[in-house]
């Protein structure tokens, strides 16, 4: 057998048998699943308490229609029949409601249904039998500053659309504004390209003519910047006051796993990298191996690669178990999500295992490589974010600008932990589910390119250290 392959497989088997690594990975998996499960359960319980009719008062005559978004306890769209009723602003009981429209929501329609109404007051009555736990009602409201009815035209799902520069929406007294939706198209019917500001803060661009974001604010002024005349609708997402902000289930699941993995995978990588090469290098035990009929380079590469492969096997198992668990509790993650989660994890493992191996060439005590690894982990997981946001925070408004966000996101490509998170979330990149301010200025190509640069740079450093220190 090729000697490099021999060292590689020997280290792979050794690491797979290592109880230390096994315990760490098992703990991570248990934590990941229990956190996700408990979060999911808590959301479910909260949501079931909210099955009640929600009344939304719209005082502005520009009220154009209603869209409803209904999800189950973990964010999956559900099929349900909803009725929108007219209420005549009765001041005294018994109150009378007149059904004015109804529509069906079904899973295939992403949970969205819509109805047009011109009423100033509306009540939406979901069935109160507890068959679905939570809902969002989206009121599409015309801008107060562009109230001229003559400007109404065709638009997204609605016959009336407004050409606006600024759409001001104010929370009704009994609700909050957790989010907004913007649709826009040019006069020729093509999707509008525009930047969206909410409350003066840049939130992102229209993607394929659509923007959706959730913000826990009481009122918002939505400013749409665009170059030419266009038709724009601004929708507000109303929720009952005790509503939990709940992204779609797959986004929720992925964001939990991304955050968890990107934070904790480096720890497992540091342990594996230390066990593979750094410890033997620092103590000198590696010398008895090197004196065997195998070249130093093959020993260094084989051991580091073997550790990476072993951790890859472990975390592939973690990803698969997590994927099966998600399906078990009713969240339909895709195989693509699984692949991207694993790819991001593998990238993170590569960076930290190779870095840990490099520290073995500089360490003078057995604890030094571990300390270096932990230092790097703390730096990229915590300190880096603080440092890079400082200039933006100090310059005030810059952080709210497109330029500020682009700068912050671009500089985050210098952080391998952040790059790993971006890789894991590539399937949600710039999608309607994504809260685009966190990825503004980035493209999937840039993320992949930065990952490649990181891998090449760490590999080059490893080669350089081997050459210089030996």
């Amino acid at each position: 057998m090729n000697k490099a392959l021999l060292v590689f497989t020997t280290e792979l088997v050794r690491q797979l048998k290592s109880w230390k690594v096994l315990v760490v990975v098992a703990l991570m998996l248990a934590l990941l699943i229990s956190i996700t499960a408990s979060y999911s359960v808590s959301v479910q319980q909260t949501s079931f308490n909210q099955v009640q009719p929600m009344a939304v008062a719209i005082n502005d005559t520009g009220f154009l229609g209603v869209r409803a978004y209904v999800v189950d306890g973990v964010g999956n769209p559900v099929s349900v029949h909803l009725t929108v009723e007219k209420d005549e602003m009765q001041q005294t009981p018994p109150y009378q409601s007149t059904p004015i429209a109804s529509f069906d929501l079904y899973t295939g329609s992403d949970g969205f249904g819509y109805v047009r109404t011109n009423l100033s007051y509306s009540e939406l009555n979901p069935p109160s039998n507890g068959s679905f736990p939570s809902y969002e009602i989206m009121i599409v409201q015309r801008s107060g500053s562009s109230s001229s009815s003559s400007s109404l035209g065709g638009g997204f799902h609605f016959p009336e659309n407004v050409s606006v520069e600024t759409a001001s929406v104010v929370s009704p007294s009994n609700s909050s504004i957790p989010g907004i939706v913007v649709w826009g198209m040019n006069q020729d019917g093509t999707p509008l390209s525009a930047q969206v500001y909410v409350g003066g803060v840049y939130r992102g661009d229209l993607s394929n003519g659509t923007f959706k974001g959730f913000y826990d604010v009481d009122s918002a002024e939505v400013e749409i910047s665009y170059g030419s005349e266009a038709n724009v609708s601004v929708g507000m997402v109303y929720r009952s006051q005790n509503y939990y902000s709940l992204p779609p289930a797959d986004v929720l699941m992925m964001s939990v796993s991304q955050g968890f993995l990107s934070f904790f995978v480096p720890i497992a990588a540091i342990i594996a990298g230390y066990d593979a090469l750094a410890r033997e290098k620092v103590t000198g035990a590696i010398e008895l191996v090197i004196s065997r009929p195998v070249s130093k380079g093959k020993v260094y590469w084989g051991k580091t690669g073997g550790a990476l492969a072993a951790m890859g096997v472990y975390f592939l198992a973690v990803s698969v178990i997590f994927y099966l668990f998600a399906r078990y509790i009713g969240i339909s993650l895709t195989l693509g999500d699984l692949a991207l989660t694993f790819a991001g994890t593998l990238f993170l493992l590569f960076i930290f295992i190779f870095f840990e191996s490099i520290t073995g060439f500089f360490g003078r005590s057995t604890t030094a490589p571990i300390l270096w690894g932990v230092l790097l982990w703390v730096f990229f997981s915590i300190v880096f974010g603080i440092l890079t946001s400082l200039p933006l925070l100090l310059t005030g408004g810059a952080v709210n600008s497109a330029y500020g966000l682009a700068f912050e996101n671009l500089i985050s490509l210098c952080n391998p932990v952040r790059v790993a998170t971006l890789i894991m979330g590539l399937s949600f990149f710039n999608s309607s589910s994504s809260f685009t301010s966190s990825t503004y200025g980035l493209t999937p190509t840039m993320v992949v390119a930065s990952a490649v640069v990181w891998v090449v740079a760490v590999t080059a450093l490893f080669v350089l250290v081997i050459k210089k220190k030996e």
Partner: protein
Amino acid sequence: MTYGVLTIEGLSKEFGATKKVPALKSVNLEVNKGEIVGFVGLNGAGKTTTIRIVAGVIRPTSGSVRVEGLDAFNNHEKAAELFSWVPENPIFDLGSNARNWLLYVSRFGSKEVSASQVDEALSKVGLGDKGRVKLKAYSLGMKRRLALAQAFLEEPQLLLMDEAMNGLDPEGMHFFRETVRDFRNKGGAVLLSSHVLTEISGVSDRVSFIHRGTTFETKTLDDLKQEFQSSYGASVTFEVQGLADADLLEIGRLSGEKVSYDGKALELKSADESVVSGVNRYLVSAGRTVTGIRRVDFNLEQLFLDKVREADRRMGA
């Protein structure tokens, strides 16, 4: 060109990236089949550096090392199949046990080694019942025995032993000595570094002297003994206590030399039989109790120290 099992030519090594510190200047050495070469030098002379270079652990600055004619640097994988290294301070993965460690390291060797062969190797070095004990619980002597077991796992042609007998108890020393002799007698070649010169002179066929990174002389043990005899002659030591000055005067007269006495041992530079028997007769007649008489034909330590002094003079120290 023919090479010995180990041939070292013009080997030099400098440490340090900016400030170069020479550890080896010029090492030349040859170890042949069925031969034990003692490698003798003061601490820091360059013995360990030389052996670590041969083992492939560090690279030399210049020079060549050949094992059975194979370039040990550029063809380490082939050359290393022919030798085993017993380092001065064997360091193992302390989290492992002896058995697992040997199985692990043997995977990188040229031959497949089974668990039963590992057990056998451990038994041979007296660690048969300690195979599953964690290495962190091993004493220095046990570690040296384990290193020896590792060295013999794959039947090497050349054994590199770096101060391998330091710190061993008498039983351990005896075991190592016999093991090395046995290996030599079966045709193996041994480079044995030590500053315990009695050990070197006890087992070596040839001795190579190194001082300040330079090997300055290599001779057979017979040649060294001859040199010692011609330079110093043989000496005789009487183990006797309570000699008075008058005794020493009389013994000086009988031997014709100025004798040295430290209260326990009386040393005569002359080993002439008539002088020795004359002095013995005097001591008995004077009522002194002689508990032993030793004849010293060769003292490598004395010879080595003189050679080092001479080398220092030549090198201008």
